[in-house]
């Protein structure tokens, strides 16, 4: 049987990879992917704890998270596509119209 801490380490790794992606990617799609990874790391945590505690609360939370994530990605990608149509780029550094 694989212990709880292994799941947690896996989740921490996925989270870190996601964070790394968010920090280093210049492409908006890449950043969105990074965010997805971080969210899924949380999902892993939730499911792991649910199993460990023997109840379903964590699982239910995870279902919510997945559906919210889907919505978020849908809206986020839609925005990215809209931006791409106007600016012909999705480089985050160059989307600086609001910068003071």
């Amino acid at each position: 049987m694989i212990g709880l801490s292994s799941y947690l380490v896996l989740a921490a790794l996925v989270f870190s990879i996601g964070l790394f992606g968010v920090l280093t990617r210049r492409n908006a799609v890449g950043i969105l992917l990074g965010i997805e990874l971080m969210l899924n790391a949380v999902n892993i945590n939730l499911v792991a704890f649910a199993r460990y505690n023997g109840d379903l609360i964590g699982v239910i939370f995870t279902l919510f998270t997945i559906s919210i994530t889907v919505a978020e990605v849908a809206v986020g990608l839609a925005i990215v596509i809209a931006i791409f149509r106007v600016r012909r780029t999705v480089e985050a550094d160059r989307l600086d119209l609001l910068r003071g």
Partner: protein
Amino acid sequence: MTLNVGLPLLVLAMPFVSFLLLAIVGPLRRTGRGAGLVSIAAIAISFAAAVFVWTQGFVAEQTWTWIPADGGPIATVGVLVDPLSNKMLVLVTLVSLLVQIYSLAYLSDERPAPLGRYYTYQSLFVFSMLGLVLAPGFLQMFVFWELVGLCSYLLIGFWYERPAAARAAVKAFWITKLGDVGFIVGIVLLWSATGTFEFTELFEKAEQSALAVPGLALIMFLIYLGAVGKSAQFPLHVWLPDAMEGPTPVSALIHAATMVTAGVYMVTRTEPLFALVPGVLTLIAWVGAFTALLAATMACVEGDIKRVLAYSTISQLGYMMAAAGSGAALAGFQHLFTHGLFKALLFLAAGAVIHAVGTNDIFRMGGLFRAMPQTGIVFIVGTLALAGVPPLAGFFSKEAVLGGVWEAHLAGPFLMLAFTALLTAFYMFRVVFVTFFGRAHAGGHPHEAPWLMRGPLWLLAALTLAYGIWLALHGGEPSGEAPAWLPPLSIGLALAGFALAWAMYQRGAIDPVRVAAALAPLDYLARRRYGLDALYAGLYRGILLGFSRLIGWIDRYFVDGILNALTALTLRAGDGLRHIQSGRAQDYVYGVAFGVLLLFVWAQVWR
């Protein structure tokens, strides 16, 4: 409040009311002549009241609490009315009245606004002097003493656009302040020793010989220092010739009735206190006599008519101080009174001459007697009075002074004063001969002054004569057992001076240039005012400027340096920290992530 106090208070209040009126009501002041009329009206009422007070011989003292304290007030204000202050009130108001009337004509070319300012200052000046005269204690006297100094500064610097006038005003202010420092230190020391500022209390203690406080000689010397500055005694006399930069009526006022007489008046007023310290008195007499002689020699080589008169004022103040120092303070005060009359006359007459020819240099005048005989006559009357020719007022008062000094067995001062009498006659007749007789140099057409200026002149000339005759009949101040040879001696000295001036400047029998060459070292020194001005200038540059430079350096490089370093540091720090705010969201997320990491580490290591 009785009439005895009320009327002197009225004398004091009128100029103050006029001053307030002119100072607060701007439109009235800016009318110029209107302001003058207000001021003249006020001083005329003052004068009338003063004459009434004098003739009635009021004596009174009234004080009000100024600084209350347990066990009696620390300081009081009030009026002290006695024969001395009565007489002084009359002199001050009379001369001020005539000067103000005269100024209406003399300053008729001024624009209205400055003229109004002039009369505002004049009113304040008269008020200050009257307050000083009536002061019942040292503290009030000091307050008005300073006010007088301030007003003289304002009036000497009346034409403040002229650098020379502005400098002269500052010089007069600072030099007299030098003495005033001694004055106030003396007053405070006296108060801490006796617990009172009041003259009457102090005199009572002096009479009961309860004033044997340690260091009284020092205290009185310090108080005397105030008089040295105000009354232009050596070595603080240097401000007075420069004060000639003010308008001529101001010079007349300062030199005849106010300001310079304040010192003599103060010494006369506190004579019972000075009598306790014979050492200081002797010093006063010697300094006075020396001042008289020194100023007279400088007057002999001066070519500016007003400066000659200024030196003669210093010289005569020396006489008064010498008399006070010899214990004949009342004789000195009498000389103050007569001198006030004829010196005002001389200055106003000189003003008329300057007004007519437009220069102060006597060698550019000449032959003016034909053009302006009336001014000439009154000037000669004043000259005769100053030279000490009977029956004019100056003769008797100078006589009393010399008698007093002889009485005190002060041979040195007596000889100096006697020689000064000779010089006085010489330099005054030198001015008369060069200015009014001799060859005419003046361009243009000098003409007699308007009646507004002539009136005061004739009045003063008449008073000089009348007061002299009155003194001759009534004897004036008792000058003690003056030796019988004194009157012939002083007349002889005056005549000798007259003859010398006549021979040198009218007859041409003796060439002034050769006399100057024969006395070259003395001539050189006198022309350079014995180097005192240079000495003060040097001291000023050396000490004061050096000190100021040091302070300036410290301020610039130390005090400011700290601040500059702080501001530079702040700027540099801000400049460096600015780069943190890149404006890129990812950088901020870096920050957040790093912060969270730190929190984790902190939680792991320290908990």
